[in-house]
């Protein structure tokens, strides 16, 4: 009995294991098929377009790289994304901190305050900003009646409008991960630092900030990637004066029917994103902060 048992056990386990594999494959199968047919194949098709230009396999990249206008667009896209990310970090920090210290009803109210914009479509919010930021819109009228400026400011169809709109839409993506990191920080660590004689600046720089870093890096990555590829808001609020890469790609497709250029532009955007993410993962000591309970 026991001898037979020990013999059959590995066999049974192997059978069980292969059944598990079969189950896993079966459960994953539909999703994988859908993903492959609707995402991977089209993506590969799209990228392959970049290399089949009549002028040669790398001609499209040459066009993108040589044109001063396109380089300017790429640079502008990058600058806007960096500025949006930096401003989001500055604006999200105090909100996330307050959120991490609130309790009960006040926490609920503050959290819904942060989440509420998610319930309104990006398009509606962007159009609202167009009305607000107009030459004769309420913001300019307020500034003028308060005597802050004499003539109306150009808030729309330039990078200012793009920044305002994008920060408004992307701010929650920064606040929530940052809040997540802050709320996990044991307050006793700060007390311990204080007791050991650290100044408030030292406690912030050497304890609080490093422990916030995973949330900060996560949020900043979200915001940066989303703003690199953002289309609606820059298109409506920036217009032709503040063209970003996504707008350029759209114009290749819609206006010029230059599919190969659009594909090359997309590929360039993806490459930039991957390189930046790789650098961020390498340079930031994120894993150390992740140990925070």
């Amino acid at each position, binding site marked *: 009995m026991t001898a037979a048992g020990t013999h059959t056990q590995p066999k049974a386990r192997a059978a069980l294991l292969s059944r598990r594999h079969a189950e896993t494959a079966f459960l994953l199968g539909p999703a994988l098929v859908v993903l492959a047919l609707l995402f991977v194949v089209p993506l590969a098709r799209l990228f392959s377009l970049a290399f089949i230009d009549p002028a040669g396999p790398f001609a499209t990249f040459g066009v993108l790289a040589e044109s001063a206008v396109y380089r300017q667009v790429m640079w502008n896209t990058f600058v806007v994304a960096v500025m949006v990310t930096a401003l989001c970090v500055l604006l999200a920090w105090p909100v996330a901190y307050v959120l991490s210290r609130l309790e009960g009803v006040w926490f609920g109210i503050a959290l819904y305050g942060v989440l509420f914009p998610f319930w309104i479509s990006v398009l509606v919010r962007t159009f609202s900003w167009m009305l607000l930021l107009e030459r004769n819109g309420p913001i300019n009228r307020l500034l003028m009646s308060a005597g802050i400026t004499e003539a109306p400011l150009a808030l729309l169809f330039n990078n200012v409008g793009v920044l305002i709109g994008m920060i408004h839409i992307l701010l929650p993506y920064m606040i929530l991960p940052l809040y997540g990191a802050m709320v996990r920080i044991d307050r006793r660590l700060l007390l311990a630092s204080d*007791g*050991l*004689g650290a100044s408030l600046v030292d406690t912030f720089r050497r*304890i609080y900030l490093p422990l916030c870093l995973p949330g900060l890096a996560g949020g900043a990555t979200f915001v940066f990637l989303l703003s690199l590829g953002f289309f609606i808001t820059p298109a409506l609020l920036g217009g032709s004066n503040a063209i970003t890469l996504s707008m350029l790609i759209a114009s290749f497709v819609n206006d010029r029917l230059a599919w190969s250029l659009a594909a090359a532009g997309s590929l360039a955007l993806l490459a930039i994103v991957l390189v930046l993410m790789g650098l961020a993962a390498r340079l930031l000591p994120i894993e150390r902060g992740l140990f925070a309970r």
Partner: protein
Amino acid sequence: MTQSVVHTGQSLRLTGVSKSYGSFRALEPTDLDVAAGEFLTLLGPSGSGKTTLLNLTAGYVEPTAGEIRIGERDVTRLPARHRNIGMVFQNYALFPHMSVGENVAYGLSVRRLPKPEIARRVGEILSLMRLDGFADRAVQQMSGGQQQRVALARALVIEPDVLLMDEPLGALDKQLRRSVQLELRRLHQKLGRTTIYVTHDQEEALVLSDRIAVMDGGRIQQLGTVDDLYDRPVNAFVAGFIGESNLLPVRVLSASGGQASVDVEAFRRTIAVDAAPGTAAGEPARLLLRPEHVELDRNGEGVAAEIVEVIYLGELTQLTLRLESGQTLAARQITDRALRAGARVHVTWKPGHVRAVPHSPSKPTKTEKADA
């Protein structure tokens, strides 16, 4: 022992220190004097104000009234970072993003000491705490007992004037706790640093302390050596909290000069006993008789009783007796096989072994807010 580590702490004096949160009094006005190099334990149940008292001393909480002095310095309004204290938290509060060595070096590095001196002092304290070779480890890789030693090393390396410990052994299992207690005692004897130690475990307090402050209801009920607390408790709370005790309700007929005449209903007789200060005629009081001081007489002297429960503990036997009045009494005797459940005995005691203490019901207190 290298010279630089030996550095006796400072004295600590609290005068009229109290703390209120709104209408809730976490600590009643309290005076406390701790001599330089003394090991004082704050012992009490949760919500007794012991953690509040510790946090006030550390500077994490500002007192509502009173004055705190470390040595000659008035530190009452000084934040923790300027007090030169060493704090060990219950969960150790080690910095999770730093190695063991970085944790220990932290207090020195924020003092902007030169790097070679930091390295030397960290090395010394790590070897004193038997943590040589662990400097580069991540704190998560350390066991509970090791983390506890890292926390202690981090607090000691800055040569604090006062070392404060908040239930530092609370997270350890029982066996480990015992050995760490002995180690803490050795360490204190070696370094002689003024130490305030918070615990709710009376055994821990007895092993470690020079003096113990028993706390309840936001005030120090009694401050004294172990002998003081055990032999001369000032009230029923202290008598019940330190060691095991029989506390029988009594009516005080008269009391003066440390003596009292009390009517013990359980014994159905009136006896003359030593009395704690505050014992007064008409005030609620208890008669304290420790289980080991209960004597059994088979010659018919004393209060008649029946043995209802016998638990052999080897050398000693734990007995539960029921007196004729219906009151039960715990007794501990040298093991004697003749003591069986159902046997009839007579209970006696030596005059010095019974003591009248005021009842002093502890004030109802809410949960200690500052129990962080």
